[in-house]
């Protein structure tokens, strides 16, 4: 809360910029003072641009594309009213798959991203990466201008420079375009495909390569083996009773994860007394593993072996096991088959047509082939499993492509290379030595959002437009086409890949808008194009553009042949050494988001680790090699080695190490530089997902990891106490117990009889409350980032997180249960419970926190003097204190992302979850305007809106029919720490598990 003085100063400066006063009015609340930034002419221009954009969208003055119209979302009133947010549908493409989004724009500034409810992939939900895209848009470290390498360093250039350069090259090129090559990212954009086609027609000799470091090619190859074509597999978990996942993180680590999570959770609420059952066989502990009813930790290779054995057990009894395969699988090298595999097989056969077997991208093609075979023979295909065409069926694998390109460069076949996005110098397989190859190239152009490792190695760098700045299109996992429409003019004059291609192809850059419309004419049909286009923009997707489902039968003999050659997989052993599994960073994907503070600071669901990646090691392996958490170790595969901090992870398979790719960036930005260890340096082609024969040795060097939760890393005393309390805090039961004792929650803890000492306060208006379903929560943490974006929550940095000063208003507690080598995991999101007898309130000497008429526990920043007493007295420890001026580092540019409906907190004040009161107030205003009560569903807090499984429900408890009221009435509903009689408004729905070996309420709730 900057004081009046600076407010005034701010005023004048903005006026100087000559902007729309209304904009200023909103912005006034945003950033204390512009003066420092204004000294810099470039920033000044930026602002003029920004204001321009804001007014463009406000339809006030001329803008870049006058003839272009951006239609507000259908649910919003037509015509713009300053100070009222509008929402536009758009999409974000990652790894060639579109996420349907709905972006809230405030007077021309996109400030919040939500899922598009109409989009088949998201159905209104989002993941943390999409949530964080806003931060990326306003990241001051983004590349701000083109540049050219002169000698060693890059020098600033203008747009005209690289355009003329490219034109020059094109002219110089031999007619057929020999020597010209394009390296693209995986993309499903119809426009890009069209531009690519045009380019290839113009330059038949042009070479087009596609490389994606986090690749799912094994799925394609597997399908190719089994089905004869690289078909794409779609799962329908809503109709699956039994799910078997081999190293497959369906719920967070899959392009269609949002849909999976939603469908999966829908089958677990057990209101009808039935639940699906999930088996996970995996090496590293994934969210899917955490949600599994049975999880088996096994090295990635052993997982493959289990898949093979399962195939044998499944197909054998069905008489469907090809001979060759039978013989092959019989060769188990004396490895005893685990009993669970047999049980699994029986269960799958018992649920024919209602089961799913799936393998992850890390598993070899052969395993995928087997999986296809199993699904087919179990009659799951066309019930729980569907096949469609995969975009770009003919392309070589990413792994092969990057290798070939490097070769082509070395052999001089490629003289000019245009790289569309990506960062191959950083993330190409280590043995390819792409950097070296690129170094030989005289002429290379790199289009990217940031100036990264690859940009520096290229002759030219061209700033790329953020997807919120530019026009484009992309397909969702199921093929549905979404139009990517900009919400703001490019801040740094960046261009999109299709715009660059148009420059390449036609020698003249066409505006992205035209290109996309041009493409759209193809799939929107001639008739009534404008209206079709309009509704496509409205809804954020093109109706009926889903890829058609294809019938496909696997060819057993081919599968048998391929598997036989490959079988058996090499599992870790004395001879083979350790195995190391390379996983995409759960937050940074392939590393492209490394400069995103929100993602860096987000505690990873399983390890609760922020700001780092680590060598994940199982307890036994750790003890064997003398590895300790928070100390570094050197991992070596062949002659390649890296040093990385160790994190002893319960449930990590013995003999198998895991590490996330994407950290350890060197040319990234203020946030991402030098964070974590670069695992790409260990990854070679042929071992893109796992390498064998790895060895590890501890260095004993201390490396503090920023973990926000310390179970298994604290003294025995605390550990035992944690285990004692867990069943009371996070109540759970098996389905059997639940059926036996529907009221089991009441027996999980002994709550003394609670008496009123005085007449309790009556709440007869609205009575806001929240319910969180622990059965549905996957711990994915999208809610955390969503809350951060909605409520202007600052990023504090690794050191502060280690000190325990993270600012997240909602946190997801992760509890382990059982043995460190095979633990069960449960997640529990915790945020302000808005207790009716809030203990924080009575201790505040200045009444800075107190109750509203609707029972909200109000925190008033401008009254707070910062005694921190409330935080001490909060049993849930959900209050967050601004120990520093956390906004100090926030540039005015970043400040543009701030939600103007929420005060930006100053130093020395307490803050906490407000149930998104700004959304309640907005709904109230709307309801008043329409002269009605606020209806159920009118108010959705950011966390609930983002949640893929709808585990969080919010509403009016006085409205008997509301979802939250019904949830609170449920038998599974309980209040955490009820015995304190703080009367929390947030209650939990107990977690249910559905293990196959379910005694059915063996003990009476297991009194803690």
């Amino acid at each position, binding site marked *: 809360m900057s004081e009046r003085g600076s407010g005034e100063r701010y005023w004048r400066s903005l006026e100087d910029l000559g902007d729309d006063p209304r904009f200023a009015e909103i912005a006034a609340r945003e950033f204390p003072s512009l003066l420092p930034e204004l000294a810099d002419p470039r920033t000044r221009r930026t602002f003029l641009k920004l204001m321009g954009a804001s007014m463009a969208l406000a339809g006030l003055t001329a803008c870049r594309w006058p003839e272009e119209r951006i239609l507000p979302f259908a649910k919003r009133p037509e015509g713009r009213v300053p100070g009222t947010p509008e929402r536009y549908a758009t999409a974000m493409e990652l790894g060639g798959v579109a996420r349907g989004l709905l972006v809230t724009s405030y007077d021309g500034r996109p400030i919040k991203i939500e899922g598009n409810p109409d989009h088949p992939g998201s159905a209104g939900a989002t993941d943390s990466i999409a949530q964080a895209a806003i931060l990326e848009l306003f990241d001051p470290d983004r590349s701000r201008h083109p540049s050219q390498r002169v000698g060693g360093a890059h020098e600033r250039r203008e747009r005209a420079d690289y355009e003329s350069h490219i034109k020059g090259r094109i002219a110089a090129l031999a007619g057929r375009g020999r020597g010209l090559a394009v390296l693209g990212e995986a993309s499903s954009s119809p426009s890009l495909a069209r531009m690519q086609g045009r380019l290839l027609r113009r330059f038949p000799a042009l070479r087009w390569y596609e490389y994606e470091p986090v690749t799912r090619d094994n799925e394609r190859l597997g399908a190719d083996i089994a089905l004869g074509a690289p078909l794409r597999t779609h799962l329908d978990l809503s109709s699956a009773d039994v799910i078997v996942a081999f190293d497959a993180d369906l719920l967070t680590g899959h392009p269609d994860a949002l849909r999976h999570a939603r469908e999966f959770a829908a089958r677990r609420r057990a209101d009808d007394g039935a639940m699906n059952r999930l088996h996970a066989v995996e090496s590293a502990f994934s969210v899917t593993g955490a949600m599994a009813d049975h999880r088996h930790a096994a090295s990635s290779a052993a997982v493959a072996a289990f898949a093979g054995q399962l195939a044998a057990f499944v197909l054998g009894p069905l008489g469907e096991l090809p001979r060759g395969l039978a013989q092959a699988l019989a060769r188990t090298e004396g490895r005893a088959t685990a009993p669970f595999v047999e049980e699994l097989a029986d269960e799958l056969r018992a649920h024919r047509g209602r089961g799913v077997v799936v393998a992850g991208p890390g598993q070899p093609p052969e395993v995928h082939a087997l999986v296809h075979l199993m699904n087919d023979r179990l009659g799951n295909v066309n019930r729980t499993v569907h096949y469609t065409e995969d975009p770009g069926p003919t392309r070589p694998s990413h792994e092969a492509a990057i290798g070939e390109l490097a070769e082509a460069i070395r052999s001089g076949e490629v003289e000019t290379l245009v790289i569309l996005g990506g960062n191959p110098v950083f993330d190409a397989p280590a043995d390819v030595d792409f950097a070296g190859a690129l170094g030989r190239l005289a002429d290379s152009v790199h289009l990217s959002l940031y100036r990264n490792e690859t940009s520096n190695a290229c002759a030219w760098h061209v700033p790329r437009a953020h997807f919120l700045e530019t026009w484009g299109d992309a397909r969702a996992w199921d093929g549905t086409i979404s139009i990517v429409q900009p919400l703001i003019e490019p801040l740094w004059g960046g261009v999109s890949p299709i715009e660059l291609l148009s420059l390449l192809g036609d020698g003249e850059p066409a505006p992205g808008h035209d290109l996309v419309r041009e493409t759209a004419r193809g799939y929107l049909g001639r008739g009534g194009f404008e209206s079709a286009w309009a509704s496509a923009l409205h809804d954020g997707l093109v109706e009926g553009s889903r890829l058609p489902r294809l019938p496909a039968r696997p060819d057993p003999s081919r599968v048998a042949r391929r598997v036989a050659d490959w079988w058996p997989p090499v599992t870790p052993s004395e001879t083979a050494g350790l195995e190391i599994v390379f996983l995409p960073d759960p937050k940074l994907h392939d590393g492209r988001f490394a400069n995103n503070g929100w993602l860096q600071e987000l505690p990873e669901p399983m390890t609760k680790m922020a700001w780092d990646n680590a060598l994940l090691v199982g307890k036994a392996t750790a003890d064997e090699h003398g590895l300790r958490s928070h100390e570094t170790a050197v991992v070596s595969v062949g002659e390649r080695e890296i040093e990385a901090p160790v994190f002893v992870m319960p449930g990590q398979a013995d003999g198998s190490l895991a590490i996330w790719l994407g950290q350890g960036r060197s040319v990234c930005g203020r946030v991402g530089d030098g964070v974590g260890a670069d695992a790409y340096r260990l990854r070679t082609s042929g071992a893109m997902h796992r390498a064998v024969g790895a060895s590890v040795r501890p260095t004993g060097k201390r490396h503090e990891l920023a973990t926000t939760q310390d179970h298994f890393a604290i003294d025995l005393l605390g550990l035992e106490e944690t285990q004692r309390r867990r069943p009371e805090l996070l109540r759970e039961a098996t389905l059997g117990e639940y059926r036996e004792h529907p009221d089991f929650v009441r027996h999980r803890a002994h709550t003394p009889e609670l008496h009123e000492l*005085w007449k309790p*306060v009556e709440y007869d208006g609205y009575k806001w409350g929240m319910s969180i379903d622990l059965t549905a929560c996957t711990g994915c943490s999208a809610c955390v980032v969503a809350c951060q974006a909605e409520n202007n929550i600052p990023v504090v940095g690794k050191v502060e997180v280690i000190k325990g000063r993270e600012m997240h208003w909602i946190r997801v507690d992760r509890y382990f249960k059982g043995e460190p080598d095979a633990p069960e995991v449960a997640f529990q999101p915790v945020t302000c419970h808005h207790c009716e*007898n*809030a*203990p924080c*309130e009575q201790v505040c000497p200045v*009444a800075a926190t*107190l*109750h509203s*008429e609707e029972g909200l526990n109000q925190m008033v920043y401008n009254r707070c003097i910062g005694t921190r007493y409330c935080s001490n007295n909060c049993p849930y420890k959900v209050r967050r204190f601004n120990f520093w001026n956390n906004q100090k580092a926030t540039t005015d540019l970043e400040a543009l992302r701030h939600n103007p409906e929420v005060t930006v907190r100053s130093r020395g004040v307490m803050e906490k979850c407000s149930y998104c009161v700004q959304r309640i107030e907005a709904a109230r205003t709307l309801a008043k305007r329409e002269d009605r009560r606020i209806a159920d569903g009118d108010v959705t807090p950011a966390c609930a809106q983002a949640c893929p499984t709808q585990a969080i429900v919010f509403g009016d408890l006085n409205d008997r029919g509301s979802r939250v009221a019904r949830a609170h009435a449920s038998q599974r509903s309980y209040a955490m720490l009820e015995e304190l009689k703080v009367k929390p408004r947030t209650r939990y729905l107990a977690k249910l598990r559905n293990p196959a070996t379910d005694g059915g309420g063996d003990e009476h709730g297991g009194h803690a």
Partner: protein
Amino acid sequence: MGDPRTAAAGSGRLVGLLAEYESVDPLLAACRAVRDAGYARWDSMTPFPVHGVDRAMGIRRTILPKLVFVGGLTGALGGLAMQWWMNAVDYPVVISGKPLFSLPAQIPIIFELTILLSALTAFGGMLALNGLPRLYNPLFRSVRFQRVTNDRFYVFVEADDPRFDAERTRKLLEATGCVALEEIRDVEE
């Protein structure tokens, strides 16, 4: 022992006679004498509170305790009223779902305010009743009087006492066996 008829300190208006004693006993005797002689405007000065001098001088009990009681009462009621008005009347807010006003929570502050105001009254009252601070006092002009904080005891009879008569009073005091007798005079204007 010096001559009792010492020269008067200063030459201004006579404000009174100061008799000096070496110890407690003659002082007490002198006090009784002066008291019995019926003087009203007189006093005795001692280095420390002398036991029994009050009776010897016939000093009546001070009203200070009553003042302090009133002060304390004001503090208590004031504290109670303040908290009640501020939290329950002027801007009532729901805090931890508790009643707007409940005595237990208010007691500590009521108590502290009671003590505070009583103490202030006691201190202030003492000063006021004693007419302190009184930086100028004719007695300070006497060199001899400096021993009042050391080891000597004095009786001082003011000149504006109705019964005061330079000669008779002097005789009376001399009779009490003072080691010295001195006329105290004011500064001349």
